[in-house]
Each structure stands twice: as C-alpha cells, then as structure tokens.
C-alpha cells in the first residue's frame, strides 16, 4: 500500500497538503479556519517533564486539605475526596460519581497517559499500546475539569466568607500548581507530532 501524504481538516473535511510548520507558526484550515497544528518547542521533552511534575503534585493536591472553615466554634477541613464522599453519604450517586471522575480520576489518568506516551517517545521505545493510550488521552482530555473546579472553590469561598472564617490549606497551593502544570501540559502536547512519532515507532 502506498503511503498517503495528504491530510484533511477534521471539521470540514477539506483535502489538504500537509504543511511544514515551525515553532511559532499556526496552521489554520483555509476553508473553515480550524486550528490544524500549533507546534510547540521541544514538545516531547516538555510533556515528559511536565507530566512528572504533575504526577508529584497530584498527591498533595488530593490528600491535603484545600480549605478549612470555622463557624460558631466548629471547624472543618475539605479535601477533593471529602466533597465526593459527602455527596455519596447524601445518596447523590450520579453527581458524586461525576465529581469523582472529572476532578480526581480523569486528571490523574490524563497525567499518567501523557507520562507513558512521552516517556516512550522520548526514549524511542516502541510499544503496541501507544496508539491506544493516545486515543484514550484524547477522549479523556475534555472530561478532566480541574480549572472548573478551581472556579467552584472560588465561588464557594465567596459564599461562605460572610458567615464563617476561611483558612486556606497547603493542598490548595498544590492544587493551583497542579492546575498550572496541567494547563502547560495540554498546550505543550502537539497531537500531530505525537501521532507522527507513534506512526514512526510502529513496528
């Protein structure tokens, strides 16, 4: 089978000749304006480094208290887990599962998959699961919602600030750092480059 060198726009299916983009360029579809590729500097190395940093930050962000409140002499700390558990105890199964998936499991999977893929690409090691991992990563990406959770924390703090005393825990700083790292991770991961490398490593 001869190799097909053409590409197509994912949103309007226009047949295109692949362009050689350099760092700083943006390749847009000429018909619908879809951002086809935006190469980033040292994409594989950066993704590798950032996913290690993210994995380390995952532990304090998940295990240490994010915010604590004091209300009429009662004190209480909240972690990512306690929000999920409290919803479970109130028999809000669906909401609890959704919060668990989008604030704990999918961000974790996102980082682990990025780490696995970028490590294999960095060390040039073929693996027959690479394409599966990359596919899962693309599907999970949308459902990891740490930045939305952060906004939720802010709104909850504003609501509570009038009636109770708030205390920010170390977990919150780790959470903010994790948020920044995952944001940088998403922007450094050049999907077109990753797929090309996965195709090259394919036995």
């Amino acid at each position, binding site marked *: 089978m001869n190799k*097909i060198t053409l590409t197509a726009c994912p949103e309007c299916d226009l047949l295109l000749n692949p362009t050689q983009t350099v760092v700083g360029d943006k390749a847009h579809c000429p018909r619908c304006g879809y951002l086809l590729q935006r190469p980033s500097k040292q994409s594989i190395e950066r993704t590798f480094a950032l996913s290690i940093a993210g994995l380390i930050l995952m532990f304090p962000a998940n295990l240490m208290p994010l915010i604590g409140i004091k209300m009429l002499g009662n004190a209480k700390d909240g972690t990512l887990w306690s929000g999920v558990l409290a919803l479970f105890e109130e028999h809000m199964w669906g909401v609890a599962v959704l919060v668990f998936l989008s604030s704990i499991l999918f961000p974790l999977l996102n980082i682990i998959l990025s780490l696995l893929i970028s490590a294999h690409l960095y060390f040039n090691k073929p693996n027959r699961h690479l394409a599966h991992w990359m596919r899962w990563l693309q599907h999970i990406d949308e459902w990891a919602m740490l930045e939305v959770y952060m906004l939720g924390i802010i709104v909850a703090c504003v*609501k509570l600030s009038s009636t109770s005393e708030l205390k920010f825990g170390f977990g919150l700083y780790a959470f903010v750092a994790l948020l920044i790292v995952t944001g940088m991770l998403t922007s450094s991961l050049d999907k077109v480059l990753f797929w090309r490398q996965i195709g090259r490593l394919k036995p």
Partner: protein
Amino acid sequence: MKSKKTALAQGFIRCHDCGCLSKRADKNRLCPLCGGQLHPRLPNSFQRTAALLLSAFCLYIPANTFPIMTVTSLGVGEPHTIIGGIIALVNSGMVPIALLVLVASILVPLLKLLGISLLLLNVHYRWQAHAKKWTVMYRIIAFVGRWSMLDIFMISILVSLVDMGGVAQVIAGPAATAFAAVVVLTMFAAKSFDPRLIWDNQR
C-alpha cells in the same frame, strides 16, 4: 496548493482519532495507524445528537424548578433553586460572582441547547449561508460546555464543608442530579455532532 474538494469526495476517509487518511476502497474498517474504527462521518451523528439534545431539554426543566441545595442554618431550612442562589448572591452584594454563576449555570446551558438545535436545523434544512460562522459556533459550544460544571463542584464543596448538624448544613437537592445530567448530555451532544455535515451540504 489547496483543493476545494473534500477528502471523502476524493475517496479518502479521515480517522477520527489520529487524523490519518485511508483509501475508501480498502475493505478493512480499521485505521492502519491507530487501529480505530473508520467511518466517513461520525456514525448516526444527526440522530444521536437529536436524542441527546431532547433528553437534555427535558431535564433542563427539573434542573431549574427543583431546589439545587437546601441551606439549613440554626435549624431553619431554606431550599435554593439555581436562580434563587444567584438572587441570594446579588442581595448580599456580590454582583461579579453572581454574574459568573448566571453565565455558567443559566446562560451557557440555555445557549448550548439552542445552539445545538440550530446546528441540527442547519443540517436538516441544508442552509447554504455562512457555513464558516456555523462551524465557529459549533467550536464555541464544544469549548464552553464544561464550564457549566461550576455549580456542581461548588455544591460538592459546600456539602462537605458546611456539615455541622443543626448549626449549619448544606444538603444537595434533586435539581443537582438533573443539572449534572443536562451538562453531561449537552457535552455528549456536542461531541456526537459532526461539523462536516454542515460542509457536506454546501453546493
């Protein structure tokens, strides 16, 4: 060089996951690079999107009429709907946060429901004008969907923090499940809609 022909018209199928092109004549239904299922367009895109959208419309009503949480303070319980929570924020003088919640939990879901309906009408009646603008609208809808989870995360934080028996307690209400379902269903609806259908109808 750019061709105004779509990949499908030239006999190519683009893989949804890795973006590589395959010849349509090839009998194998799997992508040679990543092993994903090959479809010229997302399978049953119109029907799936319409079904998900209809379910989301139905659940939008209980999401807004039932209480999303009940705030008990010193033994007096007070159920809040989504709009009630926003009015409470305005009354306590926190207008910017109230605007944020208004946008995230009322305007975004509503505009998403209407936007996806318009996209479906566009495809069904083969509207010719402004295909590029419709694609941009699709892109915005797919991007903003996740931010509606703000209210759900805020509730999970409040429920876990404000849990002090008779003194102060927040209990999630039935609308939380309905609202979470609306967010998830509209996200799936946006994901199952194939924007290439808009371009296929252009003459």
